[in-house]
């Protein structure tokens, strides 16, 4: 057993830390948060330095590392700033589906621009009436000649108004039994006729990230936009979740650590009743609990990533990491606000934003309840 990161991993972690520290600019960030602006320049620079798509093979513009290295970057970015971190590291969201199941042409066409900061990607699974349960999709893709014709609505789609292409989960065979055996993932590019993205403007957190509703009205895409085998879409998405949930766990971990860093710093400086906050044993215990939770989340998350990089798929472990890290992020950010007192409630002190940003990690990529279902079914030995 070896709990040390490799030298290379430490270098990557440090490079990520120095980069995001160098780009961190509180005034700008608060402005972006207020105006719901995606930090485009930071994203472009991150691409240029190889942070985005670090886990793609070289031939597709990546750096050939595993998801362990990817989550180290995600953690560092989110630690310095939850909003910028999430926005930037989700710029390649779902492109892994192409990486795992696409043809060589598809990978070249979509992945290389993603790593170069030319393309932003999106994954469209959730529908207004199908969120946790995606076994049946109302969005249909019907073959007509050499095209799929897509109709339906997807909602809460990250990068919805920014993405250059989406991976869309569609029902291709509405009569399949069970229905999830009749689903496909299909690439739809921005600007396709009949595709409309509407920003969902007001939301609790991750405000530098676009969240949108996508409506498909007779959107035609060539049959060659199909990803992988026909009717395997549902399975592809679940496989993708095994990877992506570790990334969300890393977001949560970074957010928790970032909130903790700020709380510790503040507690060292703030004085009440003639003492520093850190001199109160209550505060000391809070900090000890927070740090312990974070370390536990980190162990689970790193193990899940490592396990995936060993080419072992363990949905239980992935779900444990995501569920636990998400929970820790929310709890730690909450406690951080408490340590800041009234100041914690004020935007300028950032922890309230970390708290709002933390919450999403318990919802997207499968709610914590769904993660528990996954863990339980693995334990009990019953698939769903």
């Amino acid at each position, binding site marked *: 057993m070896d709990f040390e990161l490799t*030298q*290379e991993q*430490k*270098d*990557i972690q*440090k*490079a990520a830390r*120095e*980069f995001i520290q*160098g780009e961190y600019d509180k005034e700008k960030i608060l402005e972006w948060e207020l105006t719901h602006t995606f930090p485009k320049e930071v994203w472009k*620079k991150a691409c*240029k*330095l*190889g*942070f985005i798509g*670090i886990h793609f093979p070289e031939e597709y513009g990546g*750096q*050939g*590392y595993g998801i362990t290295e990817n989550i180290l970057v995600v953690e560092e970015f989110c630690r310095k700033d939850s909003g910028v971190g999430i926005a930037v590291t989700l710029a390649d969201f779902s492109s892994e589906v192409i990486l795992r199941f696409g043809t060589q042409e598809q990978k070249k066409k979509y992945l290389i621009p993603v790593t170069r900061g030319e393309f932003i990607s999106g994954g469209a699974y959730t529908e207004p009436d199908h969120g946790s349960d995606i076994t049946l999709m109302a969005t249909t893709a019907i073959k007509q000649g050499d095209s799929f014709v897509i109709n339906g609505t997807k909602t809460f789609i990250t990068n919805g108004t920014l993405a250059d292409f989406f991976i869309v989960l569609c029902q291709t065979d509405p009569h399949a039994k069970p229905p999830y055996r009749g689903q496909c993932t299909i690439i739809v590019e921005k600007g396709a006729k009949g595709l409309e993205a509407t920003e969902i403007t007001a939301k609790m957190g991750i405000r530098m990230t676009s969240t949108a509703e996508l409506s498909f009205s007779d959107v035609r895409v060539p049959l060659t936009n199909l990803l992988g085998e026909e009717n395997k879409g549902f399975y592809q998405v679940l496989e993708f979740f095994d990877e992506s949930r570790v990334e969300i766990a890393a977001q949560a971990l970074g957010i928790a650590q970032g909130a903790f860093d700020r709380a510790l710093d503040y507690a*060292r400086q703030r004085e009440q009743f003639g003492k520093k906050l850190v001199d109160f044993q209550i505060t000391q215990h809070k900090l000890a609990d927070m740090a312990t939770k974070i370390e536990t989340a980190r162990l689970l998350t790193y193990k899940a990533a490592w396990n995936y990089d060993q080419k072992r798929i363990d949905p239980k472990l992935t779900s444990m990491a995501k569920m636990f890290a998400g929970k820790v992020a929310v709890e730690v950010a909450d406690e951080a606000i408490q340590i800041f007192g009234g100041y914690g409630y004020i935007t300028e002190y950032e922890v309230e934003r970390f708290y709002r940003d933390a919450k999403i990690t318990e919802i997207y990529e499968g709610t914590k309840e769904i993660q528990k279902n996954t863990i339980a079914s693995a334990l009990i030995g019953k698939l769903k």
Partner: protein
Amino acid sequence: MNIIVCIKRVPDTADADIFIDKSGKDIEKSGLAFDLNEWDSYAIEEAIQLKEKLGGTVTVLSAGGEDSNESLRKCLAMGADDAFRLTDPAFAGADGFATARILAEAIRKRPFDLILTGTQAEDDGYGQVGVVMAEMLGVPHVSIVNRIEVQEKKIKAHRELEGGLEEVVEVDLPALLTIQTGINEPRYVSIMGIRKVAKKEIKAFGASDLNLKPEEVGLSGSDIQLDKVFLPLVGEGAEMLEGKPEEIAQKVFDILRDKGGVA
């Protein structure tokens, strides 16, 4: 152009709480973040830019413990070609002079056109290693350089003097320059850079490899020694304004008005 850059890994103390350690001769270093000396990050960037423009190689060296490899790898990842480290238990306690000797001996056998060091180190701040080394190697030097123009077999360098004045000098190559901050914008380390250097070995050399005798290095090879450290009398003159922000602001206003600051 073959360039050698000397770098040092130092603790970042500007923003940190620092405490004197048990020996009373240094500060408690555990818990401090370490990084490349700020001046050296400009020196390595300058070297890489020169290489990118003119071709040649950049070799980095550092005298220090195994931890220094981190900074050396950073320089490699930024674009240096080669790095090595000088280390030996006998080097302990070296002052600026003894450090310069170690570095000079390591450089002596290598071909070079240019040596770059930082103007000073953030921690000890002797501001002497580069210039001493030039003397030991018998090459001309220019210190506190904030602009470089390479010409045929010589360099035109701007030295920063006091009061916004600069001195422009010309120096024949090979030469040593000590680099001032602000001369360029040090780049971020890229993942491509890290990949490139991951497999690279950083060789370490000790006193005997450099043909240095024990009495020439470390504390025994030094001019000076540090007897003890202590906190400067802080706030000697300063009256501390305390209270709620509002109250502090009121006090500031009163002072300003007294001293003719607000009309």
